[in-house]
């Protein structure tokens, strides 16, 4: 039995308000996004320009990518904190293999496979050994980052040919869309379909909401989780490629600390930390909301630190708000009829 995150009784009750609340939360995110755009337009002439949006897109690229599989993992009731370390490991691997004379055409697929293997190891520890994913991925967070340093040391490999690095630094010709965002858009559609329109996605929700009932319904819980971790590793590998090209530099410490930003984006997107609830649309909105706020603050010369405060408050607010709504609703219900579920109702003859 994989360990669930600690869950209190009220939180469990609160989940009954799921669908309605979710609707509201996603609407709120979109409204906030619009508000940011409006404020941006008012306060800074540079905000809604193509160039600025290009940089905004570039800035959120890796976070956006890694948020996709992490959304599914959290919906399934687990967590993966090692994603940014897999990014770093893959970036280091790119540098190492490039120095060893490999071509980038072979390096890229190899790196994605390496990421998938790293994810598979997480999945193995969680599903086969039954270890708690929080502890496991804190461990592999250190392990994979460490391996990145073992592979590349503290040097930077930066002599990549320009025809590749331009994918990380210039927009798709004729537009202001960065290449990573194109990649993200494609993957976002794939993940949204996978989560919301396939049998696999259905089972992920069921696993997150009630692992036992899912297993009793014939769903292969362990296999599904393993697949999710492999996906997470592979996409983190892709994010490693994007990151390396964007900065035209392969380093072992690339993307250090990004894991918490990704978790924050996913939770802000309305995904329940207890699993079983969330949509990919909400997460995409949250990623761009955070990116937009950050960009706006920078344009207005507000230092980066305000962003931290805003991110943190949004994150806490995203959980406290629905909980308070639920608490009020509970209070109202309690005033009405007693509604606890009968454990042994009477049987009239």
């Amino acid at each position, binding site marked *: 039995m994989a360990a669930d995150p600690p869950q209190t009784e009220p939180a469990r009750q609160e989940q009954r308000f799921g669908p309605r609340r979710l609707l509201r939360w996603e609407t709120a995110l979109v409204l906030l996004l619009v508000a940011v755009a409006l404020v941006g337009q008012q306060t800074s002439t540079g905000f809604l320009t193509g160039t600025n949006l290009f940089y905004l897109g570039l800035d959120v690229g890796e976070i956006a990518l890694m948020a996709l599989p992490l959304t599914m993992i959290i919906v399934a009731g687990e967590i993966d904190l090692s994603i940014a370390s897999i990014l770093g490991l893959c970036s280091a691997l790119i540098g190492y293999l490039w120095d060893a004379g490999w071509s980038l055409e072979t390096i890229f697929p190899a790196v994605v496979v390496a990421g998938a293997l790293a994810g598979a190891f997480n999945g193995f520890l969680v599903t086969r050994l039954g270890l708690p994913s929080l502890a496991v991925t804190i461990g592999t*967070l250190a392990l994979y980052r460490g391996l990145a340093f073992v592979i590349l040391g503290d040097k930077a490999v930066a002599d990549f040919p320009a025809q590749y690095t331009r994918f990380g630094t210039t927009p798709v010709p004729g537009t202001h869309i960065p290449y990573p965002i194109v990649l993200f858009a494609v993957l976002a559609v794939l993940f949204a379909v996978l989560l919301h329109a396939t049998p696999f996605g259905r089972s992920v929700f069921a696993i997150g909401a009630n692992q036992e009932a899912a297993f009793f319904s014939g769903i292969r819980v362990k296999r599904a989780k393993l697949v999710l971790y492999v996906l997470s590793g592979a996409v983190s590998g892709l994010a490693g490629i994007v990151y390396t090209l964007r900065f035209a530099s392969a380093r072992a410490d690339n993307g250090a600390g990004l894991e918490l930003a990704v978790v924050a984006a996913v939770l802000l997107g309305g995904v329940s930390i207890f699993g079983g609830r969330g949509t990919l649309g909400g997460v995409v909105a949250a990623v761009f909301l955070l990116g937009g706020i950050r960009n706006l603050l920078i344009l207005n010369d507000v230092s980066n630190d305000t962003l931290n405060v805003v991110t943190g408050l949004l994150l806490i607010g995203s*959980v406290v708000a629905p909980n308070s709504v639920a608490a009020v609703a509970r209070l109202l219900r309690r005033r009405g009829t007693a509604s606890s579920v009968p454990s042994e109702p009477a049987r009239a003859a």
Partner: protein
Amino acid sequence: MSVTVDRPEWEAAEERSRRGSHLVEVALRIRELGILLVLGLVVAVTAAYNPRFLSAQSIRDLLLNASIIALLTVGQTLVVITRNVDLSVGSVLGLSAFMTGDLLAGHQGLPIVVALLAGIVLGAACGAVNGAVTAIGRVPSLVVTLGTLYVFRGIDFGWAGGRQINASNLPDSLLALGSGRILGVPYLVAITVVLVAVTAYVLRSYRSGRELYAIGSNPDAAVLAGIPVGRRVFAAFVLSGAVAGLAGMLWTARYGTVDATAGTGFELQVISAVVVGGVAIFGGSGSVVGAALGALLLSTIGSALVVLKVPSFWQQAIVGALLIGAIALDRWVGLRIAAALRQRSIRSGS
């Protein structure tokens, strides 16, 4: 059926417990001894390579390097035992480090005790925020403290505004606290040891301490037993914050230079140390002594690698592997013990 007791069996049981087999504590001790064993092994191997590793100065440095993380593990252990987690400790440390530095740099002649208290109070206030949202708002602590990790760090950056406080601006008395010794033991180490010892004693021998374990072991049963769960969890967070505040002040004393980035990423180091030290990530068991030893082990491995001329790049990978090994081992041992206990109760039950 008579009520008389099966004498021989009864006496055997009595003897078992008289022999001092406090099984719960024995299991803990074994875990702590295990870390000490690994620690001894690391030290022995390193000392064999370079005997100077065992010099008084070197040992002092080893302890000093471990002391701040070890200090943080004290607070973290309190929180983790209750089946919660505090990810904001690094940010609280940073905030307190800068604030105490700023306070002392701005008011020359201010007694450092004031700064010390200020750091602790600030940390406790941060912890109170975490605890209140977790216990009253009934929000999972992982999310709350991930949020406050950003918030506190943001406030830190806002306060600092890009400034850096250097040793030249700080009173000598503070720097003396960071580098001075009492009876040959660095102050920082002494403070850490005292705090670990006091906390260990409270956790073992006071009702409030035992209740933290009860909450983490079975929250529903804790409510039924009349334990004020919310209040205890709140207190654990306040203490974790206060300890992080204290650690922040000591951080400034030790390094003499502080900017807004102090303590970044410490949260994961601290949790690693706690888990390596045998505290169950989902609460209910573990000890502060184990957690502090975990911190010492991790930092000693770092130092040993330097002496052994292993590229320091290996350090993090080894820490990660050790962490996973520790969790897997705990799980395996836990399963074995559970099986053994079941066997035992089958035998005594029939």
